[in-house]
């Protein structure tokens, strides 16, 4: 089974957020930012770091 690389998810989400912002699609940007925040929280938890959202 493939092991996903969360840092790649975060990078891709950041690119998508930048695209949404550039297009003035702030609702899309907000939802993507929520997803990025969650991904970062999961990554921080898995690395034993305190989550920025908690």
């Amino acid at each position, binding site marked *: 089974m493939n092991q996903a690389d969360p840092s790649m998810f975060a990078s891709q989400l950041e690119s998508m957020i930048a695209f949404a912002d550039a297009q003035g699609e*702030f609702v899309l940007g*907000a939802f993507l*930012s*929520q997803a990025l925040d969650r991904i970062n929280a999961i990554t921080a938890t898995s690395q034993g770091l305190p989550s920025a959202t908690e």
Partner: protein
Amino acid sequence: MQGNEAAQIASAILSFRRYRLRALSPDIFGEPAWDLLLEVFVADAEGAPMTARIAAERSETPPSVMSRWLKHLSAKNLVIGDGDGNLDDELTLSGAGMAAIESVLLQARALKDGIGPTAGFDSESGRLDIR
């Protein structure tokens, strides 16, 4: 509806929403734009300043998320700030935003007033008729 009553209803809705976060989990809720609009409405009624950062902290919304909702609400001319998503801008509702929120709060009051006394039994369908 008097402005004071509208602010009380808005404040009650916000209190209820915060109670949900505590009683359950912030993970399963989220409507930052609505929280922000209500916060600005209540602050305006109280003559208190309101920023998106304060609203974000109260609703446990990440700043990066609230900033984009602020940009969207500004672009839709519901909220007046600098329009650049700055979380520390002091915000007010636009005329259109104020009218929209007041309309929603009026509906909320109508729903509240309709709870209980207007429920009746529909003999034809054999079911409770709650309006």
